[in-house]
């Protein structure tokens, strides 16, 4: 399979995740869509790393996975704190810091 196929799949996944971030209202689903976008970026990095014969892309993919783990931990902790205060995971109701 050529590189273009991998990049197109990665592009479709990234756009799906972006649409999910923009149109969904549940905070947890938005975080899941961000994970989807990070995975699409990982696929892109590993595909280019394979076709360019260089391991730098795979190193970056490892770091992206680590950062996704940290992001998930902190994001879910924020969700728990918000949910304790007022029982909502809807991003339309979490607007305390909105200008």
């Amino acid at each position: 399979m050529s590189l273009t196929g991998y990049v197109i799949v990665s592009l479709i996944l990234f756009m799906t995740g972006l649409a999910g971030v923009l149109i969904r209202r549940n905070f947890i689903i938005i975080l899941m869509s961000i994970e989807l976008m990070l995975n699409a970026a990982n696929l892109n990095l590993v595909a280019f790393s394979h076709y360019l014969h260089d391991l730098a892309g795979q190193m970056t993919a490892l770091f992206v996975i680590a950062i996704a783990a940290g992001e998930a931990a902190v994001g879910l902790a924020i969700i728990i704190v918000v949910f304790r205060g007022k029982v909502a995971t809807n991003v339309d109701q979490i607007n305390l810091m909105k200008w």
Partner: protein
Amino acid sequence: MARGHGRVEAHLPLNLMITNLFFYYFAAATIVSGLLVVSLRNPVQCGLALLSVLAHMAGFFVLLNAEFIAMIQVIVYAGAILILYLFVIMLLNLKSEERVLHPRWPLPLFFVLLAGGELVALLLVSPFAGRLGLIDASVITSVGHSHAVGLKLFSDYLMQFEIIGVFLLGAVIGAIVLAKSSSSNVGGQPGGNLSPHAPGVIARSPSNVGEQPGGSPPPHTPSVIALSPSNGGGLPGGSQPPHATGATQRTP
């Protein structure tokens, strides 16, 4: 391509065909599961669709001669991160809502489709030329992918590796502080600590107590119980009128 004209000519079409077959399967499964993550109503089902995306993405990584990344993907993503998501979903006892989409959802979707179409058009005319490195698939398969990744990671990327370690430590500390601060705060409040942040607590707690029979999970209850005596003692007493006036002052 030039290698295929040699003596491996008989093996290559079958090999290539199986690889293409797996590629199309992984592509179809990943894209369909990704669409399900975005479009399903129940958050638990969204999490399971995300699990399907992650597992098939690991299949892509195996096709790309990146076995170590595939293992890390399965262990860290599907084994740790996704379980964390499912824990939080079940801890918060989320119900599927009737309105899951943003009220003005067609506008972002239009722009996303526009940007996606533009990127596909750019992709199809792009030459994808680049300077080739030294570590191709034959080197990786001869030495082992974990070995190659380990050599690269602990020689050229050691600094970044340690920065990632410090980052993860900070993320863990931040998550613990965020998740614990509220309960320790509530534990200290019945003593005498209530008055400094009384407005925030009083303004926040009626909605909390009002929603309490609906969907409060069991780990949630000690903090609510610790919170509700001060709240229940405060509400019929003298602290309700300041809150009411504050609320009426804020609404215009």
